[in-house]
Every structure is written in C-alpha cells, then in structure tokens.
C-alpha cells in the first residue's frame, strides 16, 4: 500500500524543488510568508512550554516539528472557511487568525480561550479524539446547503483514525459530498503507542479508498506540499466534488503534553536526527538560501516581532480578570433552569458575591 501512496514532496530535504510544475507558483513572497509563520508558531510553542514549567499555564500540548503541516494547511484556507482543530492545532488556529491571548487563556483553564475573533469560524479544540470529524462534516454540509463556497478543515492525528468517529465522519461526508478536508497529521505516535501498534494499515491515506474519496499522502514537513495539496483539496470541496483525506507525515519532537516524558517510550535520538534532516524550518531555510533570499537581519526581525507579539499576549493573558464563578452557571442554557439559578445564587451568597 505504501507504494500506492508514496509520500509526495514538492521540496526535498535539501530545499530543492523536486516538482518543477510548482517552480512558478513558489514566489519569494509566498515562501517568506510561510517562513514568518513557521517561526512565529515555533517560538510560541517553546514559550508555552516554558510558561507551563513556571506554573503560569496548565498542561500544554506542544507541536514542535509539525509546524509545516499547520502553517501550510491554515494558509490554504479562505478567511470564511471553518476550522476544527484539536488540542495540538493551536499553531494552525493562530495562523488562521485566532487570538494568541485567547489561545493562552485556553491553556490556562479559561473558557474565554475558546472564543474565536469576530468573523472567524474556529471551533474550540477537540479534546475527545476524532469527535470533531463529524462536526466538520456537518458544518461543511450546512455550507453546501446554504449555497456558499465555504469549506471546512478538520485536523486529527494518526491515533484518531482508529476511532469510530473518524469512520463515521468520513463516511457521512463522502455520502453527502460535504465540502470538507480531513487533514491528518501523522506524527507516528499516539501518546506513547507507535503507529505500527495503532493500525495494520501501512498508510493513513489508503483509508480514503473505503470512502471512494481521494487520499493524498504528503511530506508534512514540506510546507509547499502541504499548502498546495490542501489548496487542491479545498478547491475540490468548493467545486462540489466532496471531501479529501490528506495524510501529512510528520513528527513531534517532544512530549504528547507537558505531562509525559517521551524518553520513556521512544528513543529521542531519532528526534534529534529528524530535526537535522527534516525539520520544516531548516528545510525552508535551505530553500531560501539556495534562492539567495535568506537574510539574517530579516530573520532577526521576524524573531523580534514574534517575541514582542507573544510577550504582549502573555501580558494580556496574565492581566485578564480572574475567573468569575457566575460564568459556571450562566452558559449552560440560554436561560438558566431553576436548579442552575438557585445553585448560583446560593453559592455566590456563600462566597460573598462575585469575586471579581
């Protein structure tokens, strides 16, 4: 099966374009836009781990190593499309326009973090595995029924493809030709379970055959391949041809979350080797260098800008008003039932009113 679904690249490990048909489309502006976003989300990820270690946010799910998959796919979306991320796609959500302050609030245990900026259709991160896949199918079907050209993208990992909701969502979407892209980031590990123990299938892309939809397997660390294949899948969706399954083969360098230690279940030497060879940022750097576009001052500026942006978001997150206990009760139903109203009144009276 892996012969039928080879990993497609546009750019090889040395930053050389191996699919000549894209040469024209890959402009300096596009590549620089990608690079800026890759650096921006990596710096955020590292900072977030540090915040967790300092006790300034809660448990955090890092994505370092997977940035090309997240940046390339998010930049392929139209601003009016839907995004259904999981807990590991806040990089993609950030690139798509989510508020960094709210992303931090989410990781600091606040519901406010699930609210996207006005006009942005970003779902709260899916926590139970694969459950967001049917949501994306439904939201996409709704767009089709409204007669728009909007599409949806659903993110999920390799382990999610073992869940029933993966099958049910892909089956449903394929039957009703919903305009949705199922974007799998195959980072080859669940928490600790490697893909060989997760599935007998040699690829994830091949699972598309069952639904008679295209299954595309790409190098998830090649930002060009991710971007152009996601664009193609979105075009297909918008033109009424239905869903596509994209398998972006990638790797997370670190832990599943800050609550586990990857050295316990895998040889982290492999991560180091992968970083040298396949790292999404290093590869784009090689391309920029090959093209004579790499400029250290420009890179420093990107880093300075990103640092300022991240620091500002941290300040905003930490200056955010403390949790208002009334919010526990006020968003269960549009109108609270008598149980909720009385529980709220009694509790607030007991603690002497709203604490904010």
């Amino acid at each position, binding site marked *: 099966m892996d012969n039928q679904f080879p990993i497609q690249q546009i750019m090889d490990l040395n930053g050389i374009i191996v699919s000549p048909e894209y040469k024209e489309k890959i402009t300096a502006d596009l590549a620089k836009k990608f690079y800026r976003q890759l650096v921006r989300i990596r710096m955020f990820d590292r900072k977030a781990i540090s915040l967790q270690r300092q006790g300034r946010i809660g448990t955090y799910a890092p994505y370092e190593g997977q940035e090309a998959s997240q940046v390339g796919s998010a930049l392929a979306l139209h601003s009016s499309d*839907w995004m259904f991320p999981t807990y590991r796609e806040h990089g993609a959500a950030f690139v798509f326009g989510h508020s960094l302050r709210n992303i931090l609030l989410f990781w600091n245990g606040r*519901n*406010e973090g*699930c*609210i*996207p900026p006005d006009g942005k259709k970003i*779902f*709260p991160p899916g*926590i*139970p595995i694969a*459950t967001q*896949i*049917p*949501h*994306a*199918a*439904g*939201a*996409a*079907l*709704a*767009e089709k*029924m*409204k007669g728009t050209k909007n599409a*949806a993208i659903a993110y999920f990992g390799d382990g999610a493809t073992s869940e*029933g*909701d993966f*099958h*049910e*969502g892909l*089956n*449903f979407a394929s*039957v*009703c030709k919903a305009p949705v892209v199922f974007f799998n980031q195959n980072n080859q590990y669940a928490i600790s379970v490697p893909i060989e123990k997760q599935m007998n299938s040699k690829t994830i892309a091949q699972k598309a055959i069952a639904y008679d939809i295209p299954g595309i397997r790409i190098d998830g660390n090649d930002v060009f391949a991710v971007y152009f294949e996601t664009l193609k899948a979105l075009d297909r969706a918008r033109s009424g041809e239905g869903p596509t399954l994209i398998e972006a083969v990638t790797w997370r360098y670190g832990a599943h979350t800050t609550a586990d230690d990857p050295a316990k279940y895998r040889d982290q030497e492999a991560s180091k080797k992968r970083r040298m060879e396949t790292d999404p940022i290093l590869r784009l750097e090689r391309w920029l260098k090959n093209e004579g576009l790499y400029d250290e001052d420009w890179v420093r500026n990107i880093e300075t800008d990103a640092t300022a942006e991240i620091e500002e978001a941290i300040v905003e997150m930490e200056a955010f008003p403390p949790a208002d206990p009334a*919010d526990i009760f*006020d*968003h*269960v*139903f*549009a109108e609270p*039932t*008598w*149980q*909720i109203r009385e529980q709220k009144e009694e509790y607030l009276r007991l603690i002497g009113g709203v604490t904010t």
Partner: protein
Amino acid sequence: MSTAVRTKTMTLIQAITDGLGTMLAERKEVVLMGEDIGKNGGVFRATDGLQEKYGEERVMDTPLSEAGFVGAGIGMAVNGFLPVIEIQFLGFIYPAYEQIMTHATRLRMRTMGHYTVPMVIRAPYGAGVRAPEIHCDSTEAIFTHMPGIKVVCPSSPYDAKGLLIAAIEDPDPVLFLEPMRTYRSAREEVPEGKYTIEIGKGKKRLEGEDVTVISWGAMMPIALKAAEDMKAEGVQCEVIDLRTLFPIDRDIIAESVQKTGRTVIVHEAHATGGIGNDVLAIINDTSFLYQKAPAERVTGFDAPVPYFGFEDHYLPNEKRIKHAIRKVMMF
C-alpha cells in the same frame, strides 16, 4: 366569524408527524436526519410523506451511524440549521453518547455562548410492545444527569405536538422521548398549525385529595387507570404528568404533595439513579413537613430490561401501583 382553532383527531405518532411538518413549513432551517426516515418514513412512520414534500436534503436518510449523524447535526446546528434527529429506538442512542455528553451539551458553556446547539434528538423509548432486545430501554436518567440538555417526554398527542415544536424552537439541545407503547393507542383533538407547550411544566391529569401519583410518558395511562380504580376504595388520587424530565416542574410537585401529604412515583426506568429519586429530592426540599407517609416508588427493577417474554413482570403495572397507593394510605 369563528376564531376557533381547527383541530383534528390524531394519535400521538400522527401528532409528531404533524408537528414535524408544521416546523418544516415554518422554518427553512429545520432539517430532519435519521435512519430510514425518507422513503420509509421512519420505522414508526413518524416522518411519513415528509421527504416527498420537503425533499431529500431537508429530510435526510443518514448512514447507520448514530455518533456520525449526531456529530454532523452538531456541526449543522452550530452553522445555522435546526436539526431534528431521529434515533430509531432510545436503546440505539448509546454510540452517540459521547457526542451528546462531550459536545452537544457543552458547546455553549465551552464558548460562553459563542457556539450553541439548537438541536432536537427524538427517540422512541420504553417496553410493552413485544419488541426485540435493546428496543425497550428507558434510560432517560442518563441524559437528565448531563448538564446542558433538556429532556422532554409527552404522554398525549396534544402535548407531543406542542412540546415538539417548543423543543425545535428551543435554543439548546433537547432530547425528546416518545412513548412508543402509546404511539397509536389513544386519539385526541390536536390543533392544526403551530402551537407550543412550555418545556419544564407538568400537567395535572386527575384531581384528588389523598395521594399524589407522579409519572410521565408511557406510564401515564397505567397510572391513571390505577388512580381511577382506587376511587372504588375511597381513595382520591391526584395524578401529575411531569411532561418534562429536565428541568422538572418543581412547583406542581410541591403544590400537590403539600395538599395530599402522600406520594407514589411511577416510572418504568430502573430504580437506582432514576428520576424518581430527583422527585424525592424535590419533595424533601419543598415539602418535608407536609408528608404523612414515606413516598413510594414503583419502577422498573435494577435489572436490564428483559426479553419481551418477561416484560409484563418488569414493567410497573396497575397492581403494583395500587399496592403502593394502599401502602402510603395505610402508613
């Protein structure tokens, strides 16, 4: 000129079909989703003729995947539609439990009202029709335990249509339980067109002074029959039909129990963790000192709903209800 609302004699299932048709005509956002609801009109014919009239997109036959189409319904609800989902039998809802528990009921809370799920899940429930295994469950308490979903259970054609329309117009998810045992057993005058019955309000079915009998759904005819029979023994029962299981109508319970001082709660679901216990909590909180006897519960047993060969033993019947009424009278 007459202003009287025109009515039609209907069974409970016909009233549901009528309510669905009324809302399909009224609101273009309403879509029906479920297994075999199109040409077949659903296994109980609740959607009979609706696909023909409103098309395959609005009356959608879904793949056999309760988690998949409840999940897709959540996506559609968030994106401007009002999905009304049919689960063939309540006993088949369990694959969708995760979607309901972790998403449908929580999206409003997670996003502080930014995303909401105005969705109705309809499910026939209960035993007594000689149906196969798992087709007879009455597990409403699983859902009343979930914060963020209302649970409605009508017992009459008039209430079924009015509550269904209220459920479709409700801004939050509603589980709408249909007593399949009484789908076709009684007829009632049902108004044509749109009307609603407020969710969260019970109804007094019989006035009495001595004992309050509280029930709902498929148990109502049996509870009423037992109450009528008790008149011969000089006991006047007041019969309350809860109609909504979350949020329960506390006032109607308190008012009646404070009058009678004696309560018998009847439900076909298992006793432990059943809604009867919530009713007991309401009585405890509102009417403790009014009670003349400990309240009795007549319920299904804490055993899985058995094969239908045993269901007459499993289901509460008039004999058990009358026994409980005598018990609270004699305390």
